């Protein structure tokens, strides 16, 4: 069955079509959830909420962009929603840190480790880092989505980079000392 037909059936709340759409996209969407969440459990919650929203609103999908892009936007929104209600973005202008590029050595660093340190980031840093670096949102868009200023978005991004860099360096020192 074509994707088009699946979407049409999903609009009729057809369980089979929903199941197939889920099978096609859950991997991608779940990876997105993992990046935006603190941990695995929260990611699963986000995944569940996102797909429920996706299927409930699929009749609003207008085929203008790709289905995947539309689903990703819903998922990111769902993830942000969790923090919006908690109110982590409610932070007044921080000191503006210069946007310094952080250079690091590219060794074989595992994806699991990188995901782990992303999840360990404080919520506001993690969200900004994900949105800007991994999902190509501009600072202006991020500012609008999170209800912060672009300055705050930039400074959060820099802090996120710094923290990540430190963790990678620490990790290397540890693995090096182990290998010695």
């Amino acid at each position, binding site marked *: 069955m074509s994707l088009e037909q699946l979407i049409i059936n999903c609009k009729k*709340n057809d*369980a089979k079509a*929903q*199941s197939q759409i*889920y099978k096609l996209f*859950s*991997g*991608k969407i*779940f*990876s997105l959830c*993992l*990046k935006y969440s603190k941990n695995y459990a929260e*990611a*699963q919650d986000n*995944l*569940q909420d996102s*797909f*429920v929203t996706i*299927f*409930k609103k699929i009749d609003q999908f207008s085929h203008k962009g790709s289905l995947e892009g539309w689903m990703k936007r819903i998922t990111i929104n769902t993830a942000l929603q969790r923090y919006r209600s908690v109110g982590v973005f409610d932070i007044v202008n921080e000191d503006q840190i210069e946007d310094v*590029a*952080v*250079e*690091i*050595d*590219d*060794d074989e*660093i595992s*994806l699991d480790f*990188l*995901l782990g340190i*992303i999840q360990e980031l404080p919520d506001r840093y993690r969200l900004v880092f994900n949105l800007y*670096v*991994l999902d190509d949102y501009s600072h202006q868009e991020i500012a609008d989505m999170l209800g912060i200023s672009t300055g705050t978005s930039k400074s959060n991004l820099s802090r996120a*980079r710094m923290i*990540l*860099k430190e963790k*990678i360096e620490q990790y290397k020192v540890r693995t090096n000392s182990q290998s010695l």
Partner: protein
Amino acid sequence: MNDKKHIDRLFQEKFKNFEATPDDAVWENIHKALHEDKRKRRVIPLWWFAAGVAAVLVLMLTVGNVFNSGEGFNNPENKVVGTDNTGGSDESTRTIGVDDTKNNASQSDPSTTIANTEQSEGGNFENDLQKKKLNDRDKTANQIANENSGRSTTNSSNFQDEVTVTKNNKSPVSNIKEETVAKNTPNLPDLNQNTTELYNEKNKAILKTEKDQSLIAKVTDQNLAKDTEAIKENKDIIALNNKEESIEEAIAKANSTNEEEKKEQPNRWNITPNVAPVYFNSLGKGSTISSQFVNNSKSGEVNMSYGINGSYAINDKIKIRAGVNKVALGYSTDGVIAFSDINSFNGNYGNKEIQNIDFASQRKADAYMSTSNINSNSAPQFMVSNVNGALEQQFGYIEVPLEVEYSIINSKFGLNVIGGFSTLFLNDNEVYTVLNNERSLLGEANNINSTSYSANFGLGFNYNISHTLKLNLEPMFKYQINTFTNTSGDFRPYFIGVYTGFSFKF
């Protein structure tokens, strides 16, 4: 090998093709969220509605109650204490006191506790302020009560209980009871100092708001100073003074363990088998069978309903009840002429078919018409002379009532107001013809909904035969909703039943 790389690039490259497999349970949850709740919703929308109405009713009545007891909280209206007091047992009184204190200690939120402590330290707060705080506490307790069915009586009424006890302290006997309550509290090992203080502060607060009860205040204050030995004496005195019926019970209670005593809550559950003659009729003029019968005279029939109800007492005023009844209803449409063979006359007089009845196969050829369509001058002689026929419609339901009972009088004789909804599931549906006292099955009505509803109102009279057994008599009016799909004229069905039965408390 060690390329220097911007950290963003590192993450972007690593995460480019990142996919992860979630647990299967996630899909099951999604599936459930999308499908199951819809299925449920389709079946029980009216249940939700009925339950909602019942909940609102309960809420309104409860809030009213709280308000009453809050405004004039010296009215000793709480029967929970009363029941146990009639037991004449200082032990049972003590249990209540202790439970109250425990609950207060464990369930009043910290801020309230602090507020109370401050109150006693400051000592000079305005009466209004104290009243407000006490009311707040009361409400909190009530909220807990709503959530926690098991302990709700104690919780919802614990404050009132104490007030009641205090208020009752006008005779020497109940004074002693009060002492016992107060004195036993510090003696319990698992109650800490705070609890005792809280209890006493509360007592003080009550007494402050009611200055004319200063006598009792003294008694309560003195309680703390007295010896534990005095309790024993008090017991004896009470035993002597209360020569009422249940003194044996009280002694039995005194011997039982503390935990068992806690279970000695007033009985909240009732089960009531009942039987009722029910009379069915319509408020307006109409016919469920055919438009030609709208103006015919109709008479309701008296049938029987029987079933069983269970009820739960939320507090001493309000009960929620639900049950299952089998109810049979019937009525007859008079002035119908039946022709056993359609060919025997030319159908110039009204419809030969009746649109709302599916005929039993052997009766297909029959024709029926209303005598109101017949002009006695022009009609053939056989028609005019033979007008004593009737159509008898009978239907039965399994009725599931959901009602709220509000008690107005609660003594040996009780009076309740009852309101609620029933869901009616059709289980019997027949139409008979009655001609010259001969009754034969015609078919079944095709316009009766398999599920319909009724709005119920009624009064409940009851007589307490014993502590656990009651005789009930409940005239109920049930207005049917959504019973027929296609009626002629203005047919608004209802039925009246006088439900009698015994209810057992447990």
